[in-house]
């Protein structure tokens, strides 16, 4: 991996002046990941906050070629580019030693929901590309409607707290990272901005792995989570230390947990600072809160089991 000193001299992928909110994870994710791209990046981006706020006419914050696709198909658009590029290369119209890094970005709406079909197809077909999901857990661009990445218990504008619904969203979030691992692609990883070195290593690995790679990165959203902009990285840290957002990777089918907190912090520490979970601490919702913890414990145990199982198999 490159040295920090060298990385600071690399040009930003996203220039200053974009209009993402203070404390938004998406722009940090793009800029950090961009530093790990050795080859020139070509970016496809689904409709969402990242696209809207970085390309306001007549400006663009992107220092790389950028295609804004429709909402549902950034993975398909990028797979078309990659396939045509490979074809041109094989015909000798592009030098054989040329290297490009094809990257698709999408929020959780454009990845877990409407863009899921195109993502699944692109990964299964084996394009040499990386798909990066910045997961902020709801449709933040249209005003915080629930997505299938919205955590259990969160209040959103379509899972509002009322007299009939006091618990917020009543469904579990989709474990998309595991779903992508089930595509049997070379590299899948879940990462967090709080664990910077781990994030950068995963970006490098994803970009240099031949074939498809998928990164799922937690992206704090002060507007949607109802938090202070300055708390975003701390919240990412809590997401990892509570095991709400474990950081792990599936490298050629082998599951590895990259950080095992010595003392798992109670999930309430992660939930409490967030306005979207405020109602969970109200009287009568003790059971919901307990259930959130149970589910996280269960998922964490299952993840450890998968990792241990992988390890044993490798040892054999």
């Amino acid at each position, binding site marked *: 991996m490159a040295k920090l000193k060298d990385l600071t001299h690399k040009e930003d992928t996203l220039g200053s002046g974009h209009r993402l909110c203070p404390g938004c994870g998406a722009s940090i994710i793009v800029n950090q990941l961009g530093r790990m791209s050795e080859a020139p990046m070509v970016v496809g981006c689904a409709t969402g906050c990242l696209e809207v706020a970085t390309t306001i006419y007549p400006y663009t914050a992107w220092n790389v070629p950028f295609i804004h696709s429709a909402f549902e198909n950034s993975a398909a658009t990028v797979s078309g580019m990659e396939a045509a590029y490979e074809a041109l290369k094989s015909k000798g119209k592009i030098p054989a030693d040329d290297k490009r890094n094809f990257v698709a970005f999408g929020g959780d709406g454009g990845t*877990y929901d409407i863009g899921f079909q195109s993502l699944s197809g692109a990964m299964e077909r084996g394009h040499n590309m990386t798909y990066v999901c910045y997961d902020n857990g709801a449709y933040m661009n*249209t005003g915080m409607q629930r997505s299938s990445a919205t955590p259990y218990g969160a209040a959103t504008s379509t899972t509002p707290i*009322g007299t*009939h619904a006091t618990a917020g969203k009543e469904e579990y979030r989709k474990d998309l990272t595991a779903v992508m691992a089930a595509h049997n692609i070379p590299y899948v990883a879940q990462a967090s901005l709080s664990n910077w070195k781990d994030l950068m290593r995963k970006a490098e690995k994803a970009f240099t792995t031949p074939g498809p790679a998928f990164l799922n990165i937690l992206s704090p959203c002060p507007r949607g989570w109802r938090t202070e902009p300055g708390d975003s990285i701390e919240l990412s840290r809590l997401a990892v230390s509570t095991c709400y957002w474990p950081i792990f990777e599936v490298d050629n089918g082998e599951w590895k947990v990259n950080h095992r907190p010595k003392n798992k912090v109670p999930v309430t520490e992660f939930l409490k600072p967030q306005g979207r979970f405020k109602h969970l601490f109200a009287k009568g919702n003790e059971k919901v809160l307990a259930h959130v913890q149970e589910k996280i414990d269960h998922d964490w145990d299952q993840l450890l089991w998968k990792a241990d199982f992988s390890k044993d198999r490798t040892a054999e």
Partner: protein
Amino acid sequence: MSEKSIPRLVQGNEAIALGAIHAGCRFYGGYPITPSTEIAEEMSRLLPHIGGSYVQMEDEISSIAAVIGASLTGQKSMTATSGPGFSLMQENLGYAAMAEIPLVLVNVQRGGPSTGLPTDPAQGDMMQARWGTHGEHSIIALVPSTVAECFTLTVEAFNLSERYRTPVIILSDALIGHMRENIRLDQLLKAKVIERPQPWMSPEDYRPFASTERTVVPLAPIGTEYRYRVTGLVHDMSGSPKTGDKRTIEDTGRRLRSKIYDYREEITRVEMTAMDDAEVAIFAYGSVARSAYEAVMWARERGHKVGMVRPITIWPFPTLQMREVADQVHSIVVPEMNIKQIAWETRAAIEGRANVVSMNRIDGTLIAPGEIISSLRDVLRAKGGAA
């Protein structure tokens, strides 16, 4: 004065949700998209209180598909979207037309094509509403131009969809959707609601697709003793696919068209303003009609014989009404936030009976009264009058 009769400041999108609830809509399948999202949010708040279901789907394809499923169970159902979502819904819109499933689809129009102008109004989907899905079919589409009308036309859309067993589209736009006006809910709640008719024949004699020009066979709730099949393939009157029989194919296609087209006079409504002695008509719909009204007032104050025709139903097109108008006036000015979509249709409908003057704007800005007035001036000058 009862509390209810106090005017209430309501947003256009909110009025659509309120109208849907009044019309008996108890299922909403949707996906957030600007500038229609408030309809989904409002429905997610209201439906749980009255035993309805709000389901947020994973995209617009699933949204309309869920609405089709829900409607088959006997629930009045709806979805709302905007440009890109409307495009994604086209296939299933055709399915609903083919399988004759009542539903209401609200399209709060924004600039297009593609992602276009998410937060600005447009009227670029007028022709897509008519012809967006493939194949021969008919459709009903209504165009509200006030917040109160967002309520009443939503009720009417449900009524028409049940009466004709067809999808009905409401073509709102970002301006009407996000605008707030006073409405008197107690008055609006008087709007008549048509319930879904139940089959009068026995389950053995039930043929769900045996509608003729005169009768529409009621759609029995699926899963009851009225057993039937639903398909998007060309089918016979029992719902069995029948793609090898030329007669069935021809009959199905013609009936899907005529079941709405033949009732144009019953379905199609226009509003006439100052048309009695008018020599020039402004033909304007949706948010543009609001500016057009100002232009008519300007012209009348100066003694010009200008009136306004506002289609409330745009599909089926008010062909007969427009022919009468064209026989009376020398010119029809058609201001619209697209490039001549309805002006072309008007020309086709009136077959040269009057001069059609089109004026367009597609930059996401509402056409202002002054712009319509300057078009009017040109028309009046050309006829030799001082304007």
